[in-house]
Every structure is written in C-alpha cells, then in structure tokens.
C-alpha cells in the first residue's frame, strides 16, 4: 500500500524563483532535494500540464506543472505545481489521476476567484493540503469543500491487470460466496446474468437462459473478472479428463488451502471429508482417466465428496488442469478444402459450442476418420 509521505505546493516566486511555498509535513523536502528536482517541478512551457514523476535521493515526486498566463501577474504568468512525495520504491500509478485532478481544481479556483494569487486566500492552502494528505492516507478518498461553489472529490483507484478474453465456452464461477454480493452496485446486465452464474453454466448457456446478447454477457463477465469477483473454469462433463499440477501439493503444505478445500467439496449435510480422501481423488485424476472412471474407482472416497465441486475447486486453485482434445486433419487430398476447425487450434469445447453438436457426436465423426489425429493438452 502506497503511503503518501508528503504533499507540497510549489510556485515560481517573482523574485525568489522556484520555491516550495507549503509542504506537509514541514521541512520534508530538503533544500538539496528541491534544487535537484526543481527543473521538473516548475518547468519550461513544453512540459506544462504533463504528469511528471521524478525519482531522486530515495524519493519519488509526482506533480503536474500549471501555467496561467495573464497580464495581471508579475512576469505575466502564474506558475505552480501541487504534488505528492512517496518512497522511491512505491508504485505511484494510482496517484497520477489524483495529482492531475488537483491541478485542475487549483486552476479552476484561480481562474474563478484568484484563489492562489490572492495572498489571503492562498493561506487556506495549508490546512487544505494537511487534510488531503491525512484523508488520502487514511481512507484513500477525500471530499473537501473549498468555498461555496467548489468541492474537491478524490478517490484512489487500484489499477489491475487486463482481464483475459472471455470465450463462449468458458464457465464463470464466484471466487467468494455469492451472498457477499451487493447486487445494486452492478450494472443492469450484470444483475440480469447473476442468477445464472453457478460455476457450471458456460457463457453461451448463460446468454440463452438469461436472454441477454452473447457479447454483452462476455463483457459483463470480463468486468467481473477484472475485479476478481469471478474466475473462469472449463465446462464440466463426466467424460472430461484432468491431471494434477505441481500445485496440488499445496493441499498438503498449506493448511488454509486445505481447510478451504475440504469445506468447499464436502457434500451438503455430511461430516467434513478427510484430507486423505480428497487428496487421493485429486491424485486419481490423470491423463486417460475420465471423471466417470474416477467415480467408479474411488466410490468409497466420494461418499462425502461432491465430485463436481471437487473439480471446480481444483480448477479454481490450479491444483488440477483440464486436458482438452484438439483434432488435426493431417492427411488431405489436394481437392478438398482447407480444414477450418480441425487445425489443432480449436478444442472440442470450442467446436461443440460453435457448431452445436455434442461431444459424443463429434467423437463418433472423428474417430472413424483416418485423416484426423487428436492431440490432448
């Protein structure tokens, strides 16, 4: 969590040149540091209105230099910069919109009422800076009325990684209990599809049953992915094949994963499943073994375990991975068309989803075709 160590207001004084007029806490930015970085704080015109972050002497300073030109100012221009200081190791991307916004607010205030150029009103800046720093560090947000017509609204927003593309054959599953959700927070589309997200319905099915256009469903789910509310797993079928990943050992090593798992996979109303049973089940998954096979071989272990939730948990935590089938047409005569779907780039899941035929049908078609090989990965 980034800690904002200091907030400062710097300007170009008509006689003294660039200086720090106010800083909270006082004396935080040394004379030395300011001398080194002042060229990035009170800048040449080419750099004005740009977000500038400079790292020096173990500190990072983020600011946005502003220049307001007018005859009334000595030297015909008012130059200032309101910025934040953090430790050099901090990732400060989230602070940039805040600094930009603040520069906008001050510009508006100055243009409307000469807030900064007026010595008396400028003094109000110090308590404002103080409050800003305090609230940003405490809650990450700040709402501060400045005068009758102006209020500052700031909020720190965490930047996250771009979510992956959501395919029609992907299955969204909630990462936490669905009940923790406040539905009204979300847009209408999301609210409409929420009841259909059960960790088993895939996107295409959700779209059909919720009667929402496919692309809208994809976008809504991608949004939920971005916020870490859901994760994606593959379609469940008893004919599916899975295998363990090295992460399966975390079930043994990590007590919290263990607890979470056993709670998740135990059948409703049953005594908590034993670690041994569950671990044996996961290890029973291997190439060539379908879920159906697992069920018949490990019926004793499955007495207290819901196999669908077992698979779901395993996928969510990457303890296991799904082996998909990819048909490749390796022999074809010159006259026939180029294979479109049987190129090794499209899995059974995808082909069945797009063409509407079932796995069994596809299997039957391909198994008897000597020109086609199937790769599992």
């Amino acid at each position: 969590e980034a800690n904002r160590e200091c907030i400062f207001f710097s300007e170009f004084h008509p006689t003294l040149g660039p200086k720090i007029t106010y800083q909270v806490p006082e004396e935080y930015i040394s004379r030395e540091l300011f001398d080194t970085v002042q060229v990035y704080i009170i800048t040449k015109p080419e750099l004005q209105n740009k977000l500038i972050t400079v790292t020096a002497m173990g500190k990072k300073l983020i600011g946005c230099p502003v220049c307001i030109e007018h005859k009334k100012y000595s030297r015909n221009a008012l130059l200032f910069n309101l910025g934040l200081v953090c430790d050099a190791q901090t990732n400060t991307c989230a602070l940039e919109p805040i600094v930009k916004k603040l520069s906008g607010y001050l510009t508006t205030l100055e243009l409307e009422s000469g807030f900064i150029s007026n010595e008396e009103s400028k003094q109000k800046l110090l308590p404002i800076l103080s409050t800003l720093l305090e609230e940003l560090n405490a809650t990450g947000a700040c709402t501060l009325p400045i005068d009758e017509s102006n209020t500052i609204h700031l909020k720190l927003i965490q930047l996250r990684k771009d979510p992956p593309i959501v395919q029609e054959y992907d299955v969204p599953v909630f990462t936490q209990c669905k009940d923790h959700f406040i539905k009204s927070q979300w847009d209408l589309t999301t609210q409409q599809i929420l009841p259909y997200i059960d960790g088993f319905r895939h996107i295409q099915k959700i779209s059909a049953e919720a009667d929402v256009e496919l692309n809208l469903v994809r976008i809504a789910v991608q949004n939920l992915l971005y916020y870490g509310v859901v994760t994606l797993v593959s379609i469940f079928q008893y004919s599916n094949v899975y295998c363990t990943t090295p992460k399966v050992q975390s079930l043994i090593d990590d007590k919290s994963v263990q607890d979470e798992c056993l709670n998740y996979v135990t059948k409703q109303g049953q005594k908590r499943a034993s670690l041994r049973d569950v671990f044996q089940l996961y290890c029973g998954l291997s190439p060539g073994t379908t879920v159906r096979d697992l069920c018949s071989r490990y019926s004793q272990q499955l007495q207290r375990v819901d196999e669908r939730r077992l698979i779901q948990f395993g996928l969510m935590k990457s303890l296991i991975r799904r082996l998909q089938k990819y048909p490749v047409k390796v022999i074809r005569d010159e006259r026939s068309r180029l294979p479109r779907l049987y190129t090794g780039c499209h899995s059974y899941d995808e082909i069945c989803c797009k063409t509407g035929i079932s796995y069994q049908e596809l299997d039957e078609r391909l198994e008897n075709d000597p020109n086609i090989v199937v790769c599992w990965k």
Partner: protein
Amino acid sequence: MIENPCTVSHKTAVILVTSGSRGNKLLFRYPFQRLAECPSSLTGSYAVTSHPTLHTFLIEAVLPSLRFSDIILATILATKSDICGKKFELKIDNVRFVGHPTLLQHPPIIQVSKTDPSPKREMPTMILFNVVFALRANADPSVISCMHNLSRRIAIALQHEERRCQYLTREAKLMLAIQDEITTMTEMDGSPQSPFRQILPKCKLARDLKEAYDSLCTTGVVRLHINNWLEVSFCLPHKIHRIGGNYIPPEALERSLKAIRPYHALLLLESEKALLGQLPLDCSPAMVRLIKTCSAVKNLQQLAQDADLALLQIFQIAAHLVYWGKAIIIYPLCENNVYMLSPHANICLYSSLAEQFSQQFPGHDLPSMLAKFSLPVSLAEFRNPLEAPAQEAQLIQMVVWMLQRRLLIQLHTYVCLLVPPSEDEPGLRDEDPPLAARVGGRSLSTPSALSFGSPTSSDDMTLTSPSMDNSSAELLPGGDSPLNKRMTETLLASLSEHERQVILNIPAAQNPEDLRMFARLLHYFRGHHHLEEIMYNENMRRSQLKTLFDKFRSVLVVTSHEDPIISIFQSPME
C-alpha cells in the same frame, strides 16, 4: 495495465545528453525523426513517408518520446551532479526515461602547442553525461530495470574510455560540430535536415547507440565495442525467453537456476557449431569445453567429469547459457522418461514449427508425432524390436527437437505419506497435520560437494558409490540388529502415535528390511521429491522403489506431474 514486454521494441528510443561548460546538450538521439507539432504541417520539416498523416498518427501513438524537442530533452535528461552514479528515472505522461547519469572527474587537459599564436582557449569541459532510454510508461518494472542496467554498462565503458583517451569529449565535439553546421545550413537555405542523420556515418559512438537500439528491438541481444575497444554485452531476457507470446520473468528464471541439481542436464537450444561460432574470441576455455561435451543424455555431474571441470563451475556456465537463452535445463534423456504434450504447445497444422519439423524430418508431420504424446508415454514404449536402430536414433532426435521447442513436458512420480484417519475417535476434529508440515526442511538444495559415480537414470547400471551427505544415514545391512532397530525407531519418531501404529500394522512392515527402507526414505514422502531424485540421492534402483511404494500403498498417495523447478522452461508465466 502492464504492457506485454515482448512489444517493448517499438516504444524505445535512445538519447545521449551531456552537461558541461557549454550548458546542457543533446548530442544524439535515435530514432531521430521529430514531428512538428501540427500533423498537418508535415510537408516541410521532418516528413518521412509518402503518407504523412497516417504515419504521423502511427508514430505519435507508437513513439511518444519523439514529441519532445531536443532542447527540452537536454534540460530534463542532463541531470544535476548530485544524482549521478545512480538510477535515473523520469516519467512524463506516457513516456518513461531511464538512465544512469555519470560524472566525469577530470576535465581533459589539452596541450596547446607553444608555437600556436592564437590566444589560449579553454577547451569546453564536460561534467557529466547520460545515456537515456525512452520507453512506454507502463513498461514492466523488470524491463525498466534491465534498460537501466544497459545504460549503466555503456556509461562505465564511456567513462573508462574518457579517462584513457578523452573518447567521449572527442565524439561529443564531432557531434556538436555537425549539429552547428546543419543548423547554419538550415538557416541559410531553409531546407531542414536532421543533424543526427549526418552524425551517424561520422561518429562511431552514434553508430553504437543506434546498434544498441536496433538490437534491443530485434533480438534482445546487444553487443557493442565502445571505441572499438571495450566490449559491452547485454541481453534483454524478456525478448529472449519467449514462448508463444509470453515471457519468463527474470526473477523466476533466477529462482529456477538456483534450484537445479546435479542430476539435471543441460540441453543446448542451438547446434554446437552455431553456438561456438557466437562466442567472443576471448571467452573462457571452460565454456568451450562444456559446449563440446554436453549432451541431452548426460547429467551435470557427468558433464563435470567429462569436461574435467568442477561441478560448481558447470552450474555457473550452465546458468549463464540459460540466462542468455542458449540452453534449457531438463532431466537427462533416458528410456524410462515419461513425456506428454505441453499445455502451451503450439499444435496448429499451419504453424512455422510444423513446417520446420517436416523439413528436418522428411516423411513425418508434427501433429501426428505430437498426437503420440497425448497420453504420457515413455520412450521405451516407442521401441520396436523389428525396427532398425536408425529409426530409434531418429526418434531421439525428434524428442530432442520437440524439447528444444518446448512442445513436451516430462512427468515425474511424486509420493506423499497420508495415513487413513483414525476410525474410533469421532471427536477428533483436527487430523494430524501431514508429515510435510511437521518434518522440518532438510535442505536438499544444490550441493557444493561432489558425489562420485551417481547412477544415471538407467536401471541397468550397477550402483557402487557412496551416497551424498543429503541422503539418510547409512544403515548396516543384515537383519535385526539392535542398532538398526533403534535407527528405524528414531526415524519413525517424527510420526504421530496413530501413524506409527498404522504403518507397523502393514504386512510389509513385518519385514525389517522393508520397514527400515521405508523409515529411511520417510522424509521424501512429502510430495516434493520425485522418484528420480530419490534414486539419485539414495543410490536405489527404480524397481526397488516401485516395489516399496507398492508394499506400503495403503499409506502412500502417488501422483505424477512436471517438476516445478524446471517447469518454468516449458510453461512461462505460471
């Protein structure tokens, strides 16, 4: 949004600035096209293509650093001297500048000839310089770190050459002279030209900087000779370690390299001849020996013996080759190895890999070959006694080819001790924490000591050597001696009472030899040590171990997956 580092190529620019008695100067920048402020006025200055507006849009989007003028760049990149000698990072909107500003200690003393009638002039002195790379602001932090590293290396070389023969001063003088000349020409006849374009053919340093930029964009491998003398070499791991559009983060690479064991092997990614051709003339003879001696069937320990080098040295050279993308770490090839298709393998019919395969192995196609590895299969299963030995050799070649291109992963067997919970204590909510959590980490990390004559993974080899320090205590053979019994008891002491009882009740436990072996290997049954590692450490045959596992199967859970230590080479960005 963190940008994919593989696309870092189009966003960089390299800039050289100095600060001195003549003020702050931008000596050179590449790429050197600078766009006028209004896209529409491209007819005059600096227009580069026949479709100015489209190209402008693309360039503006792709090379934002070019929008800064030379003067402003000189102001902001020629820093104050008190931040010299450290990483310099400056972000302006969506451009990030990274460099290593370097102070030049002694101003060069120029001897003016005694017969020169002109008044003595002070040679303009250079106080500091900075080689700066401009990147997209959202570049991955490890990329930024790497670029800083390159800047620092170039700076060290330049500083050295400056002290030795005022190299930088001379080049700077040349660059500034050409800039002045072009400016004058522009003022006179009004036709604008980029001074940097003229500098390039006349200044070696400018050409070096251009080459650094070009190399970064293409191969990710930079090799310069500053002043035709000092070598600066550098690689951007993000460009080198790319598998299918993803990259291996340098930190993950380093972690893996620290965890490799003597039983691993080094697989070269290029032919021996090609590699040797790439080495600099003054490279270490040890490296050459290693490359000539290494093979996919030889583990690092054997390699050390065959190349007559210390194991530690082998590790270092191997790590170096891996880091530079010239080799990967695998388990040595043998017929018991089990391979399966990598989840990241490109099995597309039309991939360039498929084409390369057909050229390399005529009559075979890649997808059919890959289909054979859909289920885990050991190399032994491909053996056909009716086939000519040449066929078998070709199979090995194909497997090596596929391993080099990360199409296959190797599966290993892992074992975990899990005792059935006690039946007659329904009140017992918490089960015994598994062995893994209890047995303290006996470090089985890379040893610095050699162990001689370790077994290959072939089961036919007779085992004669002593085991390594890491293995469990040597137990005296023969029967039920009190000493052996006590040792077995000690080893089993880490188990809970319930666990001990269950184990002792297994029929196989009645045989003291079997029980002893089980106890001795107990600490491996945590799911973190695969079969081959146990075989190596304990000098045991595969068949011995498998029999033991079978005898004690009621308390052991066995699974099979890739080795997480080296899986980074097959599955990047886990």
